[in-house]
């Protein structure tokens, strides 16, 4: 196992070039970088620049992972750059990204099924779109993955569906098994699953056979008025039980790359985004929410509610900040770096407790 980072929310990453992120991550002692899509490395898939990124990564002995983007045809209009890449042919756009990835030795590519929206409650998730049902979207996703599969196979690539906010691990496993694990795998985000009322350790057990990429992330959970409040916290300081999850992932995939997904600085949110974080609420008590989770069983729900209770007890006993206190604390660059280093330390400690060697580059002088 190796410990690296997702590039999208890397501290200061919004104003860095991909190569600068590699250099900075190497300086933090991280063993790899995971760019969300090939287009975030090079919007034109410039072969020369992509080779240059690869060279910098190789120079530090790091891993390099990337992705393709959304594979939900109902959400593709939200990423017009992919269709543009194919000169109007969306599938060609995906083909070009996969070929570019293969040319620089990337074989694991992240994909996901939707973007989270800025609405409150269940409408933040495309699972609850009213113009198209989630089951119709799942059918379309499966069909599209089948369309992309031969291209992936030809290029030796796995398209790894993320346990993203809108989809359950039950559905992901079914998608992988339907399309075939020779071309489709799972990017396991350890915290997103709680937004679907899943217990991260139980989710890990379900997805473990198919995990090929990681977003290592943690979250606090609080009882809210209409459901459960979700709020990112450094790895090891939330509800995700690294001591349980790391060993079971290691057992399935000892060479897995663990990429941290970090909390993004408030001052680099896109223009128009609300700098005061809205409440991310798991709308458990909404009948529509419940009807939209046919796989949720009582064993998982009890474990999930226990997770909330345990975190609230820990927060009380250890004086951890409440939801509002944390939300109202400025999160600047320095805080983001601290978040990264705390996460690294906690993951390394958990791995050490489990007897797992997180190999990679030795810690160098950290970024200032």
């Amino acid at each position, binding site marked *: 196992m190796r410990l690296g980072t997702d590039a999208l929310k890397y501290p200061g990453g919004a104003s860095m070039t991909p190569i600068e992120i590699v250099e900075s991550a190497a300086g933090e002692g991280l063993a790899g970088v995971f760019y969300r899509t090939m287009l975030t490395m090079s919007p034109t898939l410039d072969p020369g620049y992509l080779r240059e990124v690869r060279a910098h990564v190789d120079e530090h002995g790091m891993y390099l992972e990337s992705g393709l983007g959304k594979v939900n045809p109902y959400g593709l209009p939200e990423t017009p750059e992919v269709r543009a890449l194919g000169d109007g042919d969306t599938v060609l756009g995906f083909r070009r990204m996969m070929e570019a990835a293969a040319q620089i030795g990337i074989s694991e590519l992240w994909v996901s099924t939707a973007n989270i929206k800025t609405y409150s409650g269940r409408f933040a998730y495309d699972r609850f779109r009213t113009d198209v049902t989630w089951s119709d979207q799942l059918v379309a996703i499966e069909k599209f993955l089948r369309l992309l599969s031969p291209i992936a196979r030809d290029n030796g690539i796995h398209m790894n569906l993320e346990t993203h906010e809108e989809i359950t691990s039950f559905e992901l496993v079914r998608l992988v098994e339907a399309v075939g694990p020779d071309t489709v795998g799972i990017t396991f985000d350890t915290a997103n699953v709680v937004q679907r009322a899943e217990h991260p350790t139980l989710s890990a057990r379900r997805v473990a056979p198919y995990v090929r990429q990681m977003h290592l992330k943690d979250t606090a959970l609080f*009882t809210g008025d209409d459901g459960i409040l979700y709020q990112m916290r450094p790895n090891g300081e939330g509800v995700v039980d690294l001591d349980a999850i790391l060993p079971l992932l290691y057992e399935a995939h000892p060479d897995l790359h663990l990429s941290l997904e970090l909390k993004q600085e408030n001052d680099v949110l896109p223009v128009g985004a609300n700098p005061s974080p809205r409440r991310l609420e798991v709308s*458990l*008590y909404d009948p529509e929410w*419940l009807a939209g989770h046919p796989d*949720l069983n009582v*064993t998982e*729900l009890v474990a999930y509610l*226990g997770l909330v*209770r345990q975190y609230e*007890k820990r927060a009380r006993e250890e004086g951890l900040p409440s939801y509002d206190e944390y939300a109202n604390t400025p999160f600047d660059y320095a805080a983001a770096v601290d978040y990264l280093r705390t996460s690294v330390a906690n993951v390394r400690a958990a791995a050490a407790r489990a007897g797992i060697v997180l190999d990679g580059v030795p810690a160098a002088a950290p970024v200032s």
Partner: protein
Amino acid sequence: MILSERPFGVILRDLPGENRDLADALSATTRAGASRLQVPSLTWLSEALDPGELIRAGADAATAGVELTATLGVVNPRRPERSAALAELGEGSLLSGVGRVARAARLAGIDALHITVGALDDRTDTEVPFGEQLASAGRFLAEAVTVAAESGVRLVLKTHEEMSSHEAVALTDVAPGLLLGFSPVNLLVGLEDPVVAARRVLNVTHTLFVDDAALERTDRGFARHLVPVGTGVVDWKTILGLVTASCAITLDLHRAAFDVPFLDDGWLSYEPHASVPELLALSRVAVPSAPQTDASPRERFARGAAALGGRPVQDQTPGERGVLAVDTGEPES
């Protein structure tokens, strides 16, 4: 807040005052505005089950305008120690005991006897699994219902703390003619949503037992705190709208403050009926701390009777003690 204007009954143990005899109890019942009284046993009416005494008791109740009903007791052949008194009445035979009490009941004008299968810890009994206890109780009840019916008496099984509504309904299938006493606050300890449970038991419910409880979120799950009717989590307005017109309504004030430790390892394995929607329904109404309401039996009786249409204190004639000013025999707070 009046939840129902239908006639309602009370349980002897809940009545204000000492009520050492039937005359006192009938008086307290009518003062509360109730028209039915559930006594703890037939032997409370007549220790020797003397026909003359029983007939007189029935006549006295009728004169007071009160219908009598009675508790038969625990019926669980796999836990004979819980049914010892009933078996003794049957000279060692539980079934004969049921028959004898049913005949006695009829003499007192009683046509329904209330039974339970056990106590909450029976669910987790490792020597005799609860499923075996239920199966045994079902076989027995199939016979007991017939024996009681020979005297024109129906057996009414309470959804007691140990009994889920699913299991109670299943017993009515095994023992045709068996009816249910639906007690929503008891079902909270098995993570049942009272309204959903009401729909399950609707067609076989003889008596609706009215009480209320708050659920406190704890580190082990919930704690059930008994509170005055109308101030807890039971949606009485909906439930009272669901039950049939013939369903008897009885104020029944529970005493036990149970934990519902569903977060404990292994607890769910004893509650196979627990469901996602019902757990979420209860989680939604659970509160972070214990309620601060006055939950003394005196207060709960007064408010419960008032909620069921008992005469409020301002309706009492001077000198008459109404339901909000009754003497429970307890020290004033």
